[in-house]
């Protein structure tokens, strides 16, 4: 995992989605696989969808709790990144957080209700 600071967060946010999806493929997977052209980004998209399905409830509940304190996109990336970090997702966190921020939290969490996901056990 790369060291993180605000400058780096901005750099990630400025990269195009194709690049960010490619960065999502963990190193051990890249080292053991060969792809068709644009296949690496397609694999990244698949991983993004899988990880997002697992973490979306947490991301949205954290966002619902703290969105008033978010000042800019770096703050938002920090919020998403810390949720991913604590969730121990097996993908690089910064590109994942940057993609979530690029999609937009309001779009991502549309229809989400914080009360729905607390009764699983």
């Amino acid at each position, binding site marked *: 995992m790369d060291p*993180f600071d605000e400058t780096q967060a901005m750099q990630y946010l400025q990269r195009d989605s194709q690049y960010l999806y490619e960065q999502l493929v963990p190193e*051990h*997977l890249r*080292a053991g*696989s060969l792809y068709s052209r644009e296949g*690496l980004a397609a*694999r990244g998209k698949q991983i993004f969808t899988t990880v997002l399905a697992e973490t979306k*409830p947490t991301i949205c*509940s954290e966002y619902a709790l703290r969105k008033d304190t978010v000042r800019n996109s770096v703050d938002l990336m920090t919020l998403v990144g810390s949720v991913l970090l604590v969730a121990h997702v097996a993908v690089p966190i910064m590109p994942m957080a940057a993609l979530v921020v690029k999609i937009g939290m309001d779009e991502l969490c549309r229809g989400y209700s914080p009360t729905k996901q607390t009764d*699983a056990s």
Partner: protein
Amino acid sequence: MTSLHGEFDFEHLVCSLLGSSELREFGARDAILGEWADANMFLGEAGRRARRGEDYVYVRRLPTTKPAGLDRKLFHERIHYWQSMSTPILQYGMILRLDRMKTAAHAKHASYKAIAGNYYAREDGRRVDDAWQQFQATFGTFSITEDMIRGGDQIDYPTATALLFTERHAVGSSQILPAYVALMAYEDPESVPTLLPLTAAPLLEGFAYASELLFSGEPIPRLTGDRSEEDERYLGCWEFWCRLHKHRYRNDEELTLGFLAAVDLALNADFFSSARDGEWVYEQRHIAYRFGKIVYRALGVDPLRVDGGSDAAVIEYQHALIRNSGWDPLSESLRKMAVCLAQTILFSSAYEQELTQVIGPIWRGLVERPLDEVARDPGRLEEAWSLIRERNLTGSPPIGRAVLCTMLEACLLRLMQPAWFALPHLHADELGRNLPLPIMVLDGHYYSSHVAPDWPEEFASSLITSAPSSFMEDIVALLAMSPLVRDDVSCGFLDNFVRCQYVRAGAGCPLKGLSPEESGVRTEHGLGSWCHWRYNAEGMQLVGAEAKVEPQPGPQHGQIVNNGTCSICRSADVPVMYRRFGLLARPEPSCPQCIYNFLVEPMRSAGRKDDPEYKVLEQFAKLRKRSFFKR
């Protein structure tokens, strides 16, 4: 532009089909009785097998009507499969991978006999690690720094092309290996020159992409100044070849065939060559060095000419390059690899008492003699191959043995038909019939294009025919247990983000935790905690009686449950998340103070302040505390 893509995982021989709506529609349309009925049929059979202690791998035949564009993408992945099965570097990589799994299993007091591989791997982990590090150094790409370059010329004119000689450290080892890097400048002065290490990965990709374009009748583009990283990966080696050789060729067809022949020769390295001197060993074993030498030495031989057919032209050109380099014939390295594969298969089978008695008489002749000596003794080889074929190695095969058997078949096929593998776009049908892509995964469904092998009549009697079903089960086992290569016991399906059939059918993943619905499905079909991973982990005794934790309905990974008071900061009603794998689950508060206390502080007290992970955690904790700790 099609949105269909493929990924070939040469560690486990699984091809993943990636894409959007077209593939999802294809998967849904292919359900014979509809998704619900298909899932229930799978679960019913899987439950019956689970009660008998067997795994169930349901592989469908790939339908003939496929989405447009899939055939071309599949052709690219098929080339990678043919490369994986028949190229010595990838065969050798598979043996090393199995050896590492065996070492890890032995260290965990699991049954190392359940994994194919060499006998010494169970205890001599150091030997396996050294070989693995060298393999990785010759395979993957790497970043070039100035201090690594030796003897590079100053580039002061546009479109310059040069080979730079660099030193490549094997990871975790003090050994330095030589490597060539292609340096290519562009006419656009704004463009940064390309620096491409000529390792196996870009060669494999460049070869497959060039063949894919030839197969679909499209020209192979050249690299330009505004290229992307991906362009360099697929076209870098081709561009390098064109810059040095295009002016010597009559037409693009011959230029392309020359490129394919040169890459094929480079990838057929001889990993077991007797050390004559350092230079010889580097040329034989280290792909990035070998290909650099081939490209320059090719300037000293006549260009490839297609006057008597493409196959003959490619073979003749490869022979000319070999003669010019003073190397042994290509068949020599292939025969040595065949012996190595045969030996590994026999080692893997020698634990079975009955088989040991059968192997006994030939053991001394095949296994206890130097490998290159056996390679020159066709009688011994024939004896071993006959034994493997006649026994058919049934029973309870160790993980990886069916894969090694198929690799041996492919090795023999390459010896018989070397031009097929150098020109896959011209021999797609022959290769497809003999080495069909075994497993394609699409959203939890497994497909195959396996049909009966079609060996040439005169060789049919001397070849093994591994049962397709055992081969596919072997691949699934290899994938499920693959984290062992990194000394990890989690499931390879999770690790590789591949959805398995059990999850697809609604039975969930016991390692991640089951929802009440998934738990109900498992109870209804008597599946318990059975899955691909569980079957193989029990077979290896990796999951002992004391460690058997039956999955309970509970929260899924990442799900929040209100778990009461945080034990550290004493805040009430702290949301608690569950970690990735159910077996390892422990609650972890997500409040900033707890991130700091649980994650940052332990790393600091362990003296890991310079660890990049520590820095990122500390930064997160600080930022989060500053910006978001408002409740």
